[in-house]
């Protein structure tokens, strides 16, 4: 397609992305290199309904003058990236110097907010993504075997976990897994432990979040796989059967390779979405036991005191993380693209 025609087709979409995503990303990246101005403060007396106190307040005029001089703030280079809230270079090297064993070092690093969140984020991503793919495929294979009459309702029901807003769906499940709720109480009976509480222990909270993640995302993988299954050419499958391939071998050597592009698509989307996990943590009130990178950003930006520079730095690191995760998939896409390039 000539450049001109291409441009004419793509400009509205391109413009929307430039204006609302690319420019904000550039501005966020810029912002992550700056910190707020020094706040000039002076002592004042504050009186409320209850009593008066002498406190520091920001001196508006003096701070205003500073702001007018440099509207972006003070240049901090990579300072925000390397401070304790992010990559924490100083703290890590301190822990390294002070640690007497490797385990000690790991424990020390794990105490730093960014690494703690990174650890959960990676664990979540690498547990949930494969499980979603496997379960999605199994369910798709299972549904494919069903009689025609039951297929429709089954597909519809299977989509339910995906179509309800995660914020609310997660909250409802959170009420159900309470020790007094139906799932929590049932688990207590199954494990014969009256004190069992999914909310009280960190490992159980992690498992709960991951199970939720799998439950929520499996329908997406299922729909895509189910659709793909409809196109597996029956003659190839027949040939495999005649050659004496077992059911498992048919799946392993015929169906899975045929659906490879689908697998790539799902992996791409799932890796990205799971790396940005946030809603389950909020809905399940799991902040004490599991924090993700997105949660750190959310925490920096919610409420009245916004740490925009800090959130900007974490966001850039998130993008970097996603890029690294997706590299293998992207290389494959590059090869495919070159193959079909004209």
């Amino acid at each position, binding site marked *: 397609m000539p450049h001109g025609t291409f441009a004419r087709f793509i400009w509205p979409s391109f413009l929307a992305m430039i204006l609302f995503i690319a420019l904000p990303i550039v501005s966020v990246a810029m912002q992550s290199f700056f910190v707020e101005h020094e*706040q000039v403060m002076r002592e004042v007396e504050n009186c409320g309904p209850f009593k008066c*106190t002498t406190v520091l307040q920001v001196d508006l005029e003096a701070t205003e003058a500073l702001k007018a001089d440099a509207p972006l703030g003070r240049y901090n280079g990579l300072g925000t990236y390397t401070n*304790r809230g992010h990559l924490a270079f100083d703290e890590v090297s301190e822990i390294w110097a002070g640690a007497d064993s490797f385990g000690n070092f790991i424990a020390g690093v794990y105490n730093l907010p960014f690494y703690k969140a990174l650890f959960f984020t990676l664990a979540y991503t690498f547990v949930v993504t494969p499980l979603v793919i496997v379960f999605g495929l199994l369910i798709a294979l299972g549904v494919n075997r069903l009689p025609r009459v039951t297929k429709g309702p089954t597909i519809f029901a299977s989509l339910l976990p995906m179509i309800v807003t995660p914020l609310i769906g997660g909250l409802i499940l959170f009420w159900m897994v309470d020790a007094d709720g139906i799932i929590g109480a049932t688990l207590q009976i199954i494990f014969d432990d009256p004190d069992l509480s999914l909310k009280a222990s960190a490992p159980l909270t992690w498992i709960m979040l991951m199970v939720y993640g799998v439950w929520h995302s499996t329908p997406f993988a299922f729909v895509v796989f189910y659709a793909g299954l409809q196109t597996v050419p029956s003659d190839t499958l027949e040939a495999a059967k005649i050659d004496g391939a077992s059911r498992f071998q048919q799946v392993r050597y015929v169906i899975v390779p045929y659906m490879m592009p689908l697998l790539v698509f799902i992996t791409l989307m799932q890796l990205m979405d799971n790396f940005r996990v946030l809603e389950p943590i909020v809905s399940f*009130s799991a902040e004490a036991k599991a924090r993700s990178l997105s949660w750190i950003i959310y925490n920096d930006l919610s409420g009245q005191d916004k740490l925009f520079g800090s959130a900007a730095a974490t966001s850039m690191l998130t993008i970097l993380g996603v890029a690294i995760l997706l590299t293998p998939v992207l290389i494959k896409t590059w090869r495919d693209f070159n193959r079909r390039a004209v």
Partner: protein
Amino acid sequence: MSIITRLTVASTALGMTAGVAFADCPVTSGSVRILANDFPALHAVVDNAEACVGEGAEFSKNHSTKHNEIQVAALTANPAEYTTKIVANSSIVPLLNDGLIRPLDDLVAKHGQNLQPNQLIRIDGKIMAIAFMANAQHLIVRQDILDQVGKEVPTSYEEVLDVAEAIRAAGIMEYPFAMLTKSDWNLGEEVVNMYLGHGGEFFKPGTAEVSINNEQGVATLNMLKSLMEYSNPDFLTYNTGAVTPLWESGELAMAVLWGSSVGGLIDDEGSTPEIVAATKPAGAMTVAGGATPASSLWWDGFTIASNISDEDAEATFIAMVNGISDDMVMANNDKAVWLMDSYTPGLAAEGVAAAASAGANPYPMLPYMGLLHSAFFQEVPDFLQGNESAEQTLADIEAAYTAAAKEQGFLK
């Protein structure tokens, strides 16, 4: 006049102020644009303000749960998106920091004759906000269970531990106590309260440097941990929404809750008559033999934006004063603990009034307090879960605060 004297004399004042409509209403020019949180008491205020806006004047309102997230951007624009923002003593701080709200002295002199002196929030001698609601955390007890174990209503956290142990020993409940300890803003508030109760200073005087890694800090954390022994192991997920159903189902004997929650506990929904009858608000408690209660006082009030015309500011002020008029208070008496004279304190207000009269501190209105609050709830869960020592946690809090305060320019 302190809140408690007002609360007790309020009923006598009722007869005199009742039914006095605000003279300046309706406003006929200018624009009134209100940004507020989304709950019934504020709906009442805003609706009454709207009633004061007549022909020729504009009115718009936005009740949003994200009001704190958007307030700075909304008021920074010129002209500001809203002419007034309803704030609390923590959320006024970012507006003050950026000079987004204007002094109200002139407007108070002109239109504020009905306001009580203690409703005027003065910062550096200038009136910056008009408070109309109060709130604080305090103890709520089940009298029947206390009677069962033969204990008095606790007045200190040490007594809470004692009573909780007695209840547990009597086999009535394994976990008789709960606080709002969800590991978000809630837990931060509990740490602030407990530290205030220990008489601690959050910052080195005259600076933004944190100073909580001290004896009071250690005692604060240890007290919280001891209390959590008597709270369900799920305590790190406990916010108001989680604790009130527990209370209503009779699974708790003592809880520290917001005064604004009491009304919901003693109504006829969600619980049995026996539990409701035995539910009693008590005062805020002291800790470690201190004199000031381990609780902080909160107010809600309205502010007027800087980046608007004087005409709009005046119209808004008149409308908002009407919003918190005596008529509004009388029609919505039980929706909040109002600061106006016409308020008749009910059972729900007892705890807040008791906390105030016992000399509880207001929540610190400092530019950098929010950063410390955030550091508290990010780091304290590790300690409460037994993952690290109190000293380590306090060091972590200081480090987290310092990193954030440097980014915000409060520290070099």
